[in-house]
């Protein structure tokens, strides 16, 4: 790995200052993506701004209506949070399925969202629940946040501070994981709330997306059977060494049914 200058600010403002002083800086959260990428030489930053010493970024606050998760909260902390599990168990389940235990002990929700890997798990929950991404500058709705593969609405030097998830009546996630990396080959997060049904799909396309046909069918009948015969076109889905676009389209249907069954309390994919 090419060497770099290392900065460990203790406030968001100081982090922005450090970033702006660098020719080609990056922010470091848990490092579970950026460090492997730097080891491959695919990123060669001149300086790294470590966000781990900034206070208050690893807090979980749960109220009756909102689950608020600080950007530096690890996946392991979300998975183990009794408060999150009590009001939004589907979100705790999702966090417990990310990567593996070691990745969950380091990786953070802010790092995952800022990276927007097409096969990451969190984007499905953020979009399906209609969460709000709060940065040092503004609030960004889930609809606006995810732009394209590895691309978000974040400006250069903008830092996520927390994510606010509205609590839903029912919410669950099901994914078909790559057996080596545990990334989602296809992952489906389904939400039923007072405002209706929302489904978001990760892993299958260039970026997370919603499935309106499925949402409409589940809005009338929230059961796995209601999804019978509804297909997602393979056009535009990802095709790689792990799965063809057609296979991913098929998996979306299966994972959507499992997610609905899990949301209805009938078990589901773990």
């Amino acid at each position, binding site marked *: *790995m090419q*060497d770099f200058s290392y900065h460990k600010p203790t406030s968001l403002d100081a982090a922005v200052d450090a970033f702006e002083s660098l020719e080609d800086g990056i922010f470091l959260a848990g*490092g579970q993506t950026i*460090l*492997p990428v730097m080891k491959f030489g695919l990123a060669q930053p001149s300086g790294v701004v*470590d966000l781990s010493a900034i206070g208050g970024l690893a807090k979980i606050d749960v109220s009756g209506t909102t689950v608020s998760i600080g950007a530096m909260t690890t996946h392991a902390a979300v998975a183990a949070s009794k408060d999150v599990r009590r009001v939004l168990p589907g979100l705790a389940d999702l966090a417990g399925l990310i990567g593996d*235990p*070691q990745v969950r002990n380091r990786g953070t929700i802010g790092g995952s969202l800022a990276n927007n890997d097409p096969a990451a798990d969190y984007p499905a929950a953020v979009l399906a629940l209609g969460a709000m991404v709060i940065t040092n500058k503004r609030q960004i709705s889930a609809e606006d946040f995810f732009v394209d593969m590895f691309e978000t609405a974040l400006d250069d030097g903008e830092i996520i501070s927390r994510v606010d998830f509205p609590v839903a009546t029912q919410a669950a996630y099901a994914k078909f994981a790559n057996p080596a990396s545990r990334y989602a080959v296809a992952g489906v997060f389904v939400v039923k709330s007072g405002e209706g049904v929302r489904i978001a799909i990760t892993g299958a396309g260039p970026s997370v997306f919603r499935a309106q046909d499925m949402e409409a069918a589940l809005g009338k009948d929230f059961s796995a059977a209601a999804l019978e015969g509804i297909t997602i076109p393979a056009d535009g889905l990802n095709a790689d060494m792990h799965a063809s676009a057609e296979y991913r389209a098929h998996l979306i249907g299966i994972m959507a049914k499992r997610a609905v069954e899990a949301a209805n309390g009938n078990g589901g994919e773990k």
Partner: protein
Amino acid sequence: MPKITLTVNSEPVTRDVEARTLLVELIREDLGLTGAHIGCDTSQCGACVVQVDGAPVKSCSMLAVQADGTDVLTIEGVSPEDGLNPLQQALHEHHGLQCGFCTPGMVMTASALLRDNPDPTEQEIRHGLEGNICRCTGYQNIVEAVLAAAKTIRG
């Protein structure tokens, strides 16, 4: 160069390190603790797992500077002076290793699992070991060893 201070197996360590130094490089090359293995070097295999403040992490995917101020435990720090700990003993008795390359990482991961969940199911053990790859055993005997160790530790 950044200066870091940490403890490794209860011994205080202070070093000036290049920012790019990985935790596993500090442990193996500087401290000479070669039980944490570099297998894939891409954060998949888990041969390099150590515990940082009690949490198993892949030391090939963490910078040494990120371990500043932490308490690091490696495989060299887990055995009693007179032999093996219950998990190591169970791996021995249940033929939970063949070549042994993955074993240090397995021990560091499974010991944290047993600390947090003293009576795990087979499924919980398999889920907990997803980040540790073994190419010899097929996992069956490793899982049996962890189940047996859990029983021994519970007493």
